[in-house]
Protein backbone atom coordinates (compact mmCIF):
# COMPACT_ATOMS: atom_id res chain seq x y z
CA UNK A 1 0.00 0.00 0.00
CA UNK A 2 1.55 3.28 -1.13
CA UNK A 3 2.20 5.56 1.87
CA UNK A 4 1.93 8.66 -0.26
CA UNK A 5 -1.40 7.63 -1.67
CA UNK A 6 -2.79 6.94 1.80
CA UNK A 7 -1.67 10.21 3.33
CA UNK A 8 -2.99 12.21 0.41
CA UNK A 9 -6.29 10.44 0.67
CA UNK A 10 -6.80 10.96 4.39
CA UNK A 11 -5.78 14.61 4.55
CA UNK A 12 -9.13 15.58 3.13
CA UNK A 13 -11.25 13.95 5.77
CA UNK A 14 -9.28 14.88 8.87
CA UNK A 15 -10.50 18.40 8.27
CA UNK A 16 -14.07 17.47 9.06
CA UNK A 17 -15.17 14.45 11.06
CA UNK A 18 -16.41 11.69 8.76
CA UNK A 19 -20.10 11.04 8.31
CA UNK A 20 -19.66 7.31 8.60
CA UNK A 21 -16.64 5.61 10.08
CA UNK A 22 -16.17 1.86 10.12
CA UNK A 23 -13.45 0.49 12.35
CA UNK A 24 -12.00 -3.00 12.44
CA UNK A 25 -15.07 -4.95 11.37
CA UNK A 26 -14.96 -8.68 11.72
CA UNK A 27 -18.14 -10.24 10.40
CA UNK A 28 -18.94 -13.93 10.21
CA UNK A 29 -21.64 -15.91 8.41
CA UNK A 30 -21.93 -18.87 10.71
CA UNK A 31 -18.40 -20.15 10.88
CA UNK A 32 -17.11 -18.34 7.80
CA UNK A 33 -14.94 -15.36 8.64
CA UNK A 34 -15.88 -12.89 5.93
CA UNK A 35 -14.55 -9.53 7.07
CA UNK A 36 -11.09 -9.37 8.56
CA UNK A 37 -10.86 -6.00 10.22
CA UNK A 38 -12.40 -3.66 7.63
CA UNK A 39 -11.94 0.05 8.30
CA UNK A 40 -13.05 2.92 6.12
CA UNK A 41 -14.55 6.38 6.33
CA UNK A 42 -16.99 8.36 4.24
CA UNK A 43 -17.11 12.13 4.55
CA UNK A 44 -20.22 14.25 4.43
CA UNK A 45 -21.45 14.48 0.86
CA UNK A 46 -18.58 12.38 -0.45
CA UNK A 47 -18.87 9.66 -3.06
CA UNK A 48 -16.58 6.83 -2.03
CA UNK A 49 -16.00 3.77 -4.16
CA UNK A 50 -15.47 0.23 -2.86
CA UNK A 51 -13.87 -2.00 -5.45
CA UNK A 52 -12.90 -5.62 -5.39
CA UNK A 53 -13.50 -8.97 -7.03
CA UNK A 54 -16.55 -11.10 -6.37
CA UNK A 55 -16.81 -12.55 -2.92
CA UNK A 56 -14.25 -10.36 -1.16
CA UNK A 57 -16.81 -9.03 1.28
CA UNK A 58 -18.01 -5.77 -0.26
CA UNK A 59 -21.70 -6.55 0.15
CA UNK A 60 -21.09 -7.86 3.64
CA UNK A 61 -19.48 -4.56 4.54
CA UNK A 62 -22.55 -2.70 3.37
CA UNK A 63 -24.87 -5.04 5.21
CA UNK A 64 -22.89 -4.62 8.39
CA UNK A 65 -23.09 -0.86 8.14
CA UNK A 66 -26.82 -1.13 7.55
CA UNK A 67 -27.32 -3.30 10.59
CA UNK A 68 -28.62 -6.26 8.61
CA UNK A 69 -25.72 -8.30 9.87
CA UNK A 70 -23.89 -7.87 13.16
CA UNK A 71 -20.12 -7.93 13.38
CA UNK A 72 -18.41 -9.98 16.01
CA UNK A 73 -15.87 -7.25 16.48
CA UNK A 74 -15.53 -3.67 15.36
CA UNK A 75 -17.61 -0.56 15.26
CA UNK A 76 -19.83 1.35 12.90
CA UNK A 77 -20.03 5.03 13.77
CA UNK A 78 -22.51 7.48 12.25
CA UNK A 79 -21.84 11.16 12.86
CA UNK A 80 -19.74 10.27 15.84
CA UNK A 81 -22.37 7.99 17.32
CA UNK A 82 -21.84 4.21 17.50
CA UNK A 83 -24.64 2.38 15.74
CA UNK A 84 -23.14 -1.10 15.51
CA UNK A 85 -25.73 -2.90 17.59
CA UNK A 86 -28.79 -1.08 16.31
CA UNK A 87 -31.42 -2.92 14.28
CA UNK A 88 -31.63 -1.98 10.63
CA UNK A 89 -34.86 -0.02 10.85
CA UNK A 90 -33.37 2.32 13.42
CA UNK A 91 -30.27 2.83 11.31
CA UNK A 92 -32.49 3.68 8.35
CA UNK A 93 -34.21 6.30 10.48
CA UNK A 94 -30.86 7.78 11.41
CA UNK A 95 -30.11 8.49 7.78
CA UNK A 96 -28.51 5.51 6.08
CA UNK A 97 -30.30 4.05 3.06
CA UNK A 98 -29.51 0.77 1.33
CA UNK A 99 -29.88 -0.27 -2.28
CA UNK A 100 -29.01 -3.97 -2.37
CA UNK A 101 -27.32 -5.94 -5.07
CA UNK A 102 -30.42 -7.60 -6.45
CA UNK A 103 -32.52 -4.46 -6.14
CA UNK A 104 -35.09 -6.26 -4.01
CA UNK A 105 -37.97 -3.97 -4.66
CA UNK A 106 -41.29 -5.10 -3.27
CA UNK A 107 -42.58 -6.96 -6.30
CA UNK A 108 -46.20 -7.19 -5.22
CA UNK A 109 -46.43 -3.55 -4.20
CA UNK A 110 -47.01 -0.83 -6.78
CA UNK A 111 -44.29 1.63 -7.67
CA UNK A 112 -46.03 4.25 -5.58
CA UNK A 113 -46.38 1.89 -2.63
CA UNK A 114 -42.72 1.00 -2.91
CA UNK A 115 -41.88 4.68 -2.66
CA UNK A 116 -44.25 5.09 0.24
CA UNK A 117 -42.30 2.58 2.31
CA UNK A 118 -39.67 5.27 2.47
CA UNK A 119 -42.01 8.25 2.47
CA UNK A 120 -44.24 7.25 5.33
CA UNK A 121 -42.09 8.48 8.14
CA UNK A 122 -43.01 10.49 11.22
CA UNK A 123 -42.40 14.20 10.81
CA UNK A 124 -42.89 14.35 7.07
CA UNK A 125 -45.75 16.59 6.01
CA UNK A 126 -48.01 15.66 3.13
CA UNK A 127 -46.68 18.64 1.24
CA UNK A 128 -43.13 17.48 1.64
CA UNK A 129 -44.13 13.96 0.56
CA UNK A 130 -45.64 15.35 -2.61
CA UNK A 131 -42.49 17.42 -3.20
CA UNK A 132 -40.30 14.34 -2.89
CA UNK A 133 -42.55 12.36 -5.21
CA UNK A 134 -42.58 15.12 -7.79
CA UNK A 135 -38.82 15.35 -7.61
CA UNK A 136 -38.31 11.63 -8.05
CA UNK A 137 -40.79 11.43 -10.93
CA UNK A 138 -38.96 14.30 -12.58
CA UNK A 139 -35.71 12.37 -12.16
CA UNK A 140 -37.23 9.10 -13.31
CA UNK A 141 -40.18 9.87 -15.58
CA UNK A 142 -40.74 6.22 -16.39
CA UNK A 143 -41.50 5.55 -12.71
CA UNK A 144 -44.09 8.27 -12.83
CA UNK A 145 -45.71 6.62 -15.81
CA UNK A 146 -45.82 3.27 -14.08
CA UNK A 147 -46.69 4.52 -10.63
CA UNK A 148 -49.65 2.19 -10.16
CA UNK A 149 -48.06 -0.86 -11.64
CA UNK A 150 -46.74 -3.69 -9.51
CA UNK A 151 -42.99 -3.53 -8.98
CA UNK A 152 -42.54 -7.03 -10.34
CA UNK A 153 -43.74 -5.95 -13.79
CA UNK A 154 -40.91 -3.47 -14.27
CA UNK A 155 -37.85 -4.21 -16.34
CA UNK A 156 -34.46 -4.71 -14.71
CA UNK A 157 -33.33 -1.17 -15.35
CA UNK A 158 -36.61 0.28 -14.13
CA UNK A 159 -36.41 -1.79 -10.97
CA UNK A 160 -32.94 -0.44 -10.34
CA UNK A 161 -34.26 3.09 -10.67
CA UNK A 162 -37.10 2.25 -8.33
CA UNK A 163 -34.68 0.82 -5.78
CA UNK A 164 -32.63 4.03 -5.86
CA UNK A 165 -35.72 6.24 -5.84
CA UNK A 166 -37.09 4.32 -2.90
CA UNK A 167 -33.88 4.94 -0.97
CA UNK A 168 -34.06 8.63 -1.87
CA UNK A 169 -37.49 8.81 -0.25
CA UNK A 170 -35.79 8.36 3.09
CA UNK A 171 -33.94 11.67 2.49
CA UNK A 172 -30.82 9.92 3.71
CA UNK A 173 -27.46 11.38 4.56
CA UNK A 174 -25.74 8.48 2.86
CA UNK A 175 -26.83 5.83 0.40
CA UNK A 176 -25.15 2.42 0.28
CA UNK A 177 -25.27 1.42 -3.38
CA UNK A 178 -24.45 -2.20 -4.14
CA UNK A 179 -23.52 -2.84 -7.78
CA UNK A 180 -26.21 -0.62 -9.30
CA UNK A 181 -25.02 -1.15 -12.87
CA UNK A 182 -24.95 -4.93 -12.79
CA UNK A 183 -26.80 -6.39 -15.74
CA UNK A 184 -27.76 -3.02 -17.17
CA UNK A 185 -27.35 -1.74 -20.71
CA UNK A 186 -24.71 0.93 -21.36
CA UNK A 187 -27.39 3.58 -21.76
CA UNK A 188 -28.67 2.84 -18.28
CA UNK A 189 -25.16 2.78 -16.86
CA UNK A 190 -24.79 6.37 -18.00
CA UNK A 191 -28.07 7.20 -16.36
CA UNK A 192 -26.88 5.71 -13.08
CA UNK A 193 -23.75 7.83 -13.35
CA UNK A 194 -25.90 10.90 -13.79
CA UNK A 195 -28.01 9.99 -10.79
CA UNK A 196 -24.93 9.55 -8.63
CA UNK A 197 -23.65 12.95 -9.76
CA UNK A 198 -27.03 14.54 -9.03
CA UNK A 199 -27.15 13.04 -5.56
CA UNK A 200 -23.60 14.18 -4.92
CA UNK A 201 -24.57 17.73 -5.91
CA UNK A 202 -27.37 17.61 -3.37
CA UNK A 203 -24.93 16.66 -0.66
CA UNK A 204 -25.92 13.05 -0.24
CA UNK A 205 -22.94 10.84 0.51
CA UNK A 206 -22.65 7.57 -1.36
CA UNK A 207 -20.71 4.39 -0.68
CA UNK A 208 -20.58 2.81 -4.10
CA UNK A 209 -19.75 -0.86 -4.45
CA UNK A 210 -19.04 -1.68 -8.08
CA UNK A 211 -17.35 -4.02 -10.48
CA UNK A 212 -17.39 -1.30 -13.14
CA UNK A 213 -14.01 0.33 -12.47
CA UNK A 214 -14.13 3.24 -14.96
CA UNK A 215 -17.55 4.35 -13.68
CA UNK A 216 -16.39 4.16 -10.08
CA UNK A 217 -13.22 6.15 -10.73
CA UNK A 218 -15.17 8.85 -12.54
CA UNK A 219 -18.06 9.11 -10.11
CA UNK A 220 -16.21 8.99 -6.81
CA UNK A 221 -13.70 11.16 -5.00
CA UNK A 222 -11.91 8.32 -3.22
CA UNK A 223 -11.77 4.59 -3.60
CA UNK A 224 -10.99 1.67 -1.35
CA UNK A 225 -9.96 -1.65 -2.81
CA UNK A 226 -10.80 -4.83 -0.95
CA UNK A 227 -9.38 -8.29 -1.17
CA UNK A 228 -10.14 -11.35 0.94
CA UNK A 229 -12.19 -9.46 3.47
CA UNK A 230 -9.87 -6.54 4.14
CA UNK A 231 -9.01 -3.13 2.68
CA UNK A 232 -5.80 -3.40 0.66
CA UNK A 233 -5.52 -0.03 -0.97
CA UNK A 234 -6.92 3.43 -0.54
CA UNK A 235 -6.47 6.36 -2.90
CA UNK A 236 -8.01 9.42 -4.42
CA UNK A 237 -9.90 8.46 -7.54
CA UNK A 238 -8.10 11.13 -9.52
CA UNK A 239 -4.78 9.45 -8.73
CA UNK A 240 -5.79 6.14 -10.20
CA UNK A 241 -6.15 5.05 -13.79
CA UNK A 242 -7.41 1.84 -15.35
CA UNK A 243 -4.02 0.59 -16.40
CA UNK A 244 -2.43 1.06 -12.98
CA UNK A 245 -0.66 -1.88 -11.36
CA UNK A 246 -2.80 -1.63 -8.28
CA UNK A 247 -5.94 -2.03 -10.33
CA UNK A 248 -4.47 -4.93 -12.22
CA UNK A 249 -3.37 -6.61 -9.02
CA UNK A 250 -6.59 -6.51 -7.09
CA UNK A 251 -9.16 -6.40 -9.79
CA UNK A 252 -7.54 -8.26 -12.63
CA UNK A 253 -8.80 -5.67 -15.10
Amino acid sequence: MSAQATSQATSEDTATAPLVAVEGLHTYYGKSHILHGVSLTIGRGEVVGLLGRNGVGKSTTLKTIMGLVYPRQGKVVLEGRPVTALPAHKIAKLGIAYVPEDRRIFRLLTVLENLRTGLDRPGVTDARKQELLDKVFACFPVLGERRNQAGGTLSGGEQQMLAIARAMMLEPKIILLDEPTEGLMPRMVTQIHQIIDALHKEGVAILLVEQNVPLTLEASQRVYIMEKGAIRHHAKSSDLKIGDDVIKQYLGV
Partner: protein
Amino acid sequence: MAAILSFFADFPIELFFIQTLNGIVTGMILALIASGLTLIFGIMDVVNFAHGELFMLGAYVGVIVLSTTGSFWLALLLAALLVGIFGAAMQIVTLRPLLGRDPLTTILATFGMSLILQNYALWQFGPVARKINEPYTGHFNLFYLEYPWYRLMIAGLSAAIIGGFWLFLKHGKFGIWIRATMQDRVMAQAMGIPVPLVHTVAFAIGAAMAAASGVLFGPLVGVNHTMGLDWVLKAFIVVVVGGMGNLGGSIAAAIFISLLEAYASIWVSPAQAVIVSFVVLIFTLLFRPTGLFVPTPK
Protein backbone atom coordinates in the same frame (compact mmCIF):
# COMPACT_ATOMS: atom_id res chain seq x y z
CA MET B 1 -78.76 -44.75 -19.21
CA ALA B 2 -81.81 -45.40 -17.17
CA ALA B 3 -79.66 -45.68 -14.09
CA ILE B 4 -78.10 -42.27 -14.71
CA LEU B 5 -81.48 -40.70 -15.24
CA SER B 6 -82.86 -42.19 -12.06
CA PHE B 7 -79.84 -40.99 -10.19
CA PHE B 8 -80.58 -37.45 -11.22
CA ALA B 9 -84.24 -37.86 -10.48
CA ASP B 10 -83.49 -39.04 -6.99
CA PHE B 11 -80.85 -36.41 -6.51
CA PRO B 12 -81.82 -34.42 -3.45
CA ILE B 13 -81.78 -31.00 -5.07
CA GLU B 14 -83.12 -29.24 -2.04
CA LEU B 15 -80.61 -30.92 0.20
CA PHE B 16 -77.89 -29.91 -2.22
CA PHE B 17 -78.99 -26.33 -2.07
CA ILE B 18 -79.22 -26.33 1.71
CA GLN B 19 -75.80 -27.86 1.99
CA THR B 20 -74.39 -25.26 -0.37
CA LEU B 21 -75.63 -22.65 2.02
CA ASN B 22 -74.25 -24.49 5.02
CA GLY B 23 -70.98 -25.01 3.24
CA ILE B 24 -70.63 -21.31 2.53
CA VAL B 25 -71.46 -20.41 6.12
CA THR B 26 -68.88 -22.80 7.57
CA GLY B 27 -66.48 -21.80 4.84
CA MET B 28 -66.63 -18.14 5.76
CA ILE B 29 -65.91 -18.83 9.41
CA LEU B 30 -63.08 -21.14 8.45
CA ALA B 31 -61.77 -18.46 6.09
CA LEU B 32 -61.69 -15.98 8.94
CA ILE B 33 -59.72 -18.34 11.18
CA ALA B 34 -57.42 -19.40 8.38
CA SER B 35 -56.73 -15.81 7.29
CA GLY B 36 -55.32 -15.03 10.69
CA LEU B 37 -53.23 -18.17 10.65
CA THR B 38 -51.81 -17.56 7.21
CA LEU B 39 -51.14 -13.90 7.97
CA ILE B 40 -49.09 -14.90 10.98
CA PHE B 41 -47.22 -17.51 9.01
CA GLY B 42 -46.68 -15.31 5.99
CA ILE B 43 -45.27 -12.45 7.97
CA MET B 44 -43.10 -14.15 10.54
CA ASP B 45 -42.83 -17.80 9.55
CA VAL B 46 -44.59 -18.86 12.72
CA VAL B 47 -46.98 -21.78 12.75
CA ASN B 48 -49.32 -20.70 15.50
CA PHE B 49 -50.46 -23.87 17.19
CA ALA B 50 -52.28 -21.79 19.74
CA HIS B 51 -54.57 -20.30 17.10
CA GLY B 52 -57.42 -22.65 17.95
CA GLU B 53 -57.12 -21.62 21.57
CA LEU B 54 -57.34 -17.96 20.63
CA PHE B 55 -60.57 -18.90 18.84
CA MET B 56 -61.71 -20.67 22.00
CA LEU B 57 -60.76 -17.76 24.26
CA GLY B 58 -62.70 -15.41 22.03
CA ALA B 59 -65.75 -17.60 22.42
CA TYR B 60 -65.40 -17.62 26.20
CA VAL B 61 -64.94 -13.87 26.39
CA GLY B 62 -68.07 -13.70 24.29
CA VAL B 63 -69.90 -15.87 26.79
CA ILE B 64 -68.87 -13.67 29.69
CA VAL B 65 -69.62 -10.37 28.01
CA LEU B 66 -72.94 -11.67 26.74
CA SER B 67 -74.02 -12.85 30.16
CA THR B 68 -73.06 -9.58 31.79
CA THR B 69 -74.25 -7.12 29.20
CA GLY B 70 -76.67 -9.09 27.06
CA SER B 71 -75.24 -7.56 23.93
CA PHE B 72 -73.96 -9.87 21.24
CA TRP B 73 -72.27 -7.06 19.38
CA LEU B 74 -70.39 -5.88 22.41
CA ALA B 75 -69.32 -9.46 22.99
CA LEU B 76 -67.98 -9.67 19.45
CA LEU B 77 -66.12 -6.40 19.74
CA LEU B 78 -64.61 -7.01 23.17
CA ALA B 79 -63.60 -10.56 22.34
CA ALA B 80 -61.69 -9.40 19.29
CA LEU B 81 -60.12 -6.52 21.19
CA LEU B 82 -59.12 -8.37 24.35
CA VAL B 83 -57.85 -11.48 22.62
CA GLY B 84 -56.02 -9.28 20.13
CA ILE B 85 -54.21 -7.55 22.97
CA PHE B 86 -53.53 -10.89 24.61
CA GLY B 87 -52.14 -12.13 21.33
CA ALA B 88 -49.77 -9.19 21.16
CA ALA B 89 -48.59 -9.91 24.70
CA MET B 90 -48.14 -13.58 23.87
CA GLN B 91 -46.08 -12.74 20.82
CA ILE B 92 -43.84 -10.35 22.72
CA VAL B 93 -43.21 -12.70 25.60
CA THR B 94 -42.85 -16.05 23.89
CA LEU B 95 -42.12 -15.45 20.23
CA ARG B 96 -39.88 -12.41 20.10
CA PRO B 97 -37.12 -14.10 22.10
CA LEU B 98 -37.20 -16.89 19.54
CA LEU B 99 -36.73 -14.61 16.56
CA GLY B 100 -33.99 -15.82 14.30
CA ARG B 101 -33.84 -19.24 15.83
CA ASP B 102 -34.80 -22.52 14.27
CA PRO B 103 -38.44 -22.16 13.12
CA LEU B 104 -39.22 -25.42 14.88
CA THR B 105 -38.84 -23.68 18.22
CA THR B 106 -41.81 -21.46 17.47
CA ILE B 107 -43.95 -24.47 16.70
CA LEU B 108 -43.04 -25.90 20.06
CA ALA B 109 -43.56 -22.63 21.89
CA THR B 110 -47.02 -22.05 20.43
CA PHE B 111 -47.84 -25.67 21.13
CA GLY B 112 -46.89 -25.10 24.76
CA MET B 113 -49.11 -22.01 24.83
CA SER B 114 -52.01 -23.98 23.44
CA LEU B 115 -51.71 -26.50 26.25
CA ILE B 116 -51.59 -23.74 28.83
CA LEU B 117 -54.61 -21.95 27.39
CA GLN B 118 -56.68 -25.09 27.03
CA ASN B 119 -56.06 -26.13 30.58
CA TYR B 120 -56.63 -22.63 31.82
CA ALA B 121 -60.02 -22.64 30.17
CA LEU B 122 -60.81 -26.06 31.59
CA TRP B 123 -59.79 -24.87 35.03
CA GLN B 124 -61.72 -21.63 34.94
CA PHE B 125 -64.83 -22.71 33.15
CA GLY B 126 -65.11 -26.39 33.75
CA PRO B 127 -65.77 -29.13 31.24
CA VAL B 128 -69.41 -28.32 30.64
CA ALA B 129 -70.10 -26.49 27.41
CA ARG B 130 -71.43 -22.96 27.55
CA LYS B 131 -73.81 -21.33 25.19
CA ILE B 132 -73.74 -18.10 23.33
CA ASN B 133 -77.18 -17.00 22.32
CA GLU B 134 -77.84 -15.93 18.80
CA PRO B 135 -78.46 -12.24 18.44
CA TYR B 136 -81.35 -12.89 16.14
CA THR B 137 -83.46 -15.98 16.21
CA GLY B 138 -85.64 -15.59 13.19
CA HIS B 139 -86.00 -18.22 10.49
CA PHE B 140 -87.05 -18.18 6.93
CA ASN B 141 -88.49 -20.98 4.92
CA LEU B 142 -86.04 -22.76 2.72
CA PHE B 143 -87.76 -25.64 1.01
CA TYR B 144 -88.94 -27.84 3.81
CA LEU B 145 -86.64 -26.39 6.44
CA GLU B 146 -86.79 -23.39 8.63
CA TYR B 147 -83.39 -21.94 7.94
CA PRO B 148 -82.11 -19.61 10.65
CA TRP B 149 -81.28 -16.11 9.52
CA TYR B 150 -78.43 -16.17 11.96
CA ARG B 151 -76.43 -18.52 9.82
CA LEU B 152 -76.55 -16.13 6.93
CA MET B 153 -75.59 -13.37 9.30
CA ILE B 154 -72.45 -15.20 10.37
CA ALA B 155 -71.41 -15.63 6.77
CA GLY B 156 -72.09 -12.00 6.09
CA LEU B 157 -70.24 -10.77 9.14
CA SER B 158 -67.24 -12.98 8.45
CA ALA B 159 -67.16 -11.72 4.91
CA ALA B 160 -67.38 -8.17 6.20
CA ILE B 161 -64.50 -8.68 8.60
CA ILE B 162 -62.35 -10.30 5.95
CA GLY B 163 -63.28 -7.55 3.53
CA GLY B 164 -62.38 -4.92 6.09
CA PHE B 165 -59.05 -6.57 6.63
CA TRP B 166 -58.44 -6.68 2.90
CA LEU B 167 -59.12 -2.96 2.62
CA PHE B 168 -56.82 -2.26 5.54
CA LEU B 169 -54.06 -4.15 3.79
CA LYS B 170 -54.51 -2.42 0.48
CA HIS B 171 -54.70 1.12 1.74
CA GLY B 172 -53.05 3.01 4.50
CA LYS B 173 -49.54 3.06 5.80
CA PHE B 174 -49.76 0.06 8.08
CA GLY B 175 -51.25 -2.08 5.35
CA ILE B 176 -48.26 -1.31 3.18
CA TRP B 177 -45.95 -2.06 6.07
CA ILE B 178 -47.57 -5.46 6.60
CA ARG B 179 -47.46 -6.36 2.92
CA ALA B 180 -43.88 -5.18 2.55
CA THR B 181 -42.79 -7.16 5.61
CA MET B 182 -44.54 -10.25 4.28
CA GLN B 183 -42.68 -10.00 0.99
CA ASP B 184 -39.22 -9.09 2.16
CA ARG B 185 -38.61 -8.68 5.85
CA VAL B 186 -35.01 -7.62 5.40
CA MET B 187 -35.67 -4.82 2.92
CA ALA B 188 -38.64 -3.67 4.97
CA GLN B 189 -36.26 -3.14 7.86
CA ALA B 190 -33.78 -1.40 5.60
CA MET B 191 -36.55 1.02 4.64
CA GLY B 192 -37.04 1.98 8.24
CA ILE B 193 -40.21 -0.07 8.77
CA PRO B 194 -40.28 -1.15 12.43
CA VAL B 195 -40.55 -4.83 11.66
CA PRO B 196 -40.76 -6.07 15.29
CA LEU B 197 -43.79 -3.82 15.80
CA VAL B 198 -45.34 -5.01 12.54
CA HIS B 199 -44.93 -8.60 13.68
CA THR B 200 -46.67 -7.92 16.98
CA VAL B 201 -49.53 -6.05 15.35
CA ALA B 202 -49.97 -8.74 12.71
CA PHE B 203 -50.13 -11.39 15.39
CA ALA B 204 -52.67 -9.32 17.29
CA ILE B 205 -54.80 -8.96 14.17
CA GLY B 206 -54.64 -12.70 13.56
CA ALA B 207 -55.64 -13.36 17.15
CA ALA B 208 -58.49 -10.87 16.94
CA MET B 209 -59.82 -12.53 13.81
CA ALA B 210 -59.69 -15.92 15.49
CA ALA B 211 -61.50 -14.55 18.52
CA ALA B 212 -64.18 -12.97 16.36
CA SER B 213 -64.80 -16.29 14.65
CA GLY B 214 -65.13 -17.86 18.07
CA VAL B 215 -67.92 -15.51 19.04
CA LEU B 216 -69.62 -15.76 15.66
CA PHE B 217 -69.52 -19.50 15.64
CA GLY B 218 -70.38 -19.89 19.32
CA PRO B 219 -74.14 -20.09 18.90
CA LEU B 220 -73.78 -22.94 16.43
CA VAL B 221 -71.68 -25.18 18.63
CA GLY B 222 -71.14 -25.32 22.35
CA VAL B 223 -68.34 -23.26 23.79
CA ASN B 224 -65.89 -25.49 25.59
CA HIS B 225 -62.20 -25.81 26.13
CA THR B 226 -61.53 -28.25 23.31
CA MET B 227 -63.39 -26.38 20.59
CA GLY B 228 -60.12 -25.01 19.32
CA LEU B 229 -58.64 -28.40 18.55
CA ASP B 230 -61.00 -29.42 15.78
CA TRP B 231 -60.93 -26.04 14.13
CA VAL B 232 -57.20 -25.52 14.25
CA LEU B 233 -56.70 -28.75 12.38
CA LYS B 234 -59.16 -27.75 9.69
CA ALA B 235 -57.57 -24.33 9.57
CA PHE B 236 -54.13 -25.85 9.03
CA ILE B 237 -55.43 -28.00 6.22
CA VAL B 238 -57.01 -24.93 4.65
CA VAL B 239 -53.81 -22.95 4.98
CA VAL B 240 -51.70 -25.68 3.39
CA VAL B 241 -54.21 -26.28 0.59
CA GLY B 242 -54.57 -22.57 -0.04
CA GLY B 243 -50.85 -21.98 -0.10
CA MET B 244 -49.10 -20.95 3.08
CA GLY B 245 -48.89 -17.20 3.38
CA ASN B 246 -51.42 -16.74 0.60
CA LEU B 247 -54.43 -14.86 1.94
CA GLY B 248 -56.61 -15.17 -1.11
CA GLY B 249 -55.77 -18.84 -1.39
CA SER B 250 -56.82 -19.56 2.20
CA ILE B 251 -60.20 -18.00 1.65
CA ALA B 252 -60.77 -19.91 -1.56
CA ALA B 253 -59.58 -23.14 0.03
CA ALA B 254 -61.78 -22.62 3.09
CA ILE B 255 -64.91 -22.29 1.03
CA PHE B 256 -63.93 -25.05 -1.35
CA ILE B 257 -63.26 -27.58 1.40
CA SER B 258 -66.31 -26.60 3.41
CA LEU B 259 -68.56 -26.99 0.40
CA LEU B 260 -67.14 -30.40 -0.41
CA GLU B 261 -67.61 -31.51 3.17
CA ALA B 262 -71.12 -30.18 3.27
CA TYR B 263 -72.01 -32.12 0.14
CA ALA B 264 -70.34 -35.23 1.50
CA SER B 265 -72.53 -34.94 4.59
CA ILE B 266 -75.53 -35.70 2.42
CA TRP B 267 -74.36 -39.26 2.14
CA VAL B 268 -72.12 -39.90 5.12
CA SER B 269 -72.09 -38.80 8.74
CA PRO B 270 -70.43 -35.46 9.52
CA ALA B 271 -67.72 -37.21 11.52
CA GLN B 272 -66.77 -39.09 8.40
CA ALA B 273 -67.23 -36.13 6.11
CA VAL B 274 -64.02 -34.65 7.47
CA ILE B 275 -62.21 -37.31 5.49
CA VAL B 276 -62.92 -35.08 2.51
CA SER B 277 -60.59 -32.41 3.79
CA PHE B 278 -57.92 -35.03 4.35
CA VAL B 279 -58.30 -36.28 0.80
CA VAL B 280 -58.04 -32.76 -0.57
CA LEU B 281 -54.91 -32.25 1.50
CA ILE B 282 -53.28 -35.43 0.24
CA PHE B 283 -54.20 -34.50 -3.30
CA THR B 284 -52.67 -31.07 -2.85
CA LEU B 285 -49.49 -32.46 -1.33
CA LEU B 286 -49.05 -34.90 -4.15
CA PHE B 287 -49.75 -32.66 -7.10
CA ARG B 288 -49.66 -29.01 -6.07
CA PRO B 289 -47.74 -28.71 -2.83
CA THR B 290 -47.48 -24.95 -3.06
CA GLY B 291 -51.23 -24.61 -2.90
CA LEU B 292 -54.20 -25.87 -4.87
CA PHE B 293 -55.12 -22.49 -6.27
CA VAL B 294 -51.60 -21.25 -6.66
CA PRO B 295 -49.87 -21.64 -10.00
CA THR B 296 -46.93 -23.97 -9.56
CA PRO B 297 -43.79 -21.85 -9.46
CA LYS B 298 -40.95 -22.61 -11.84
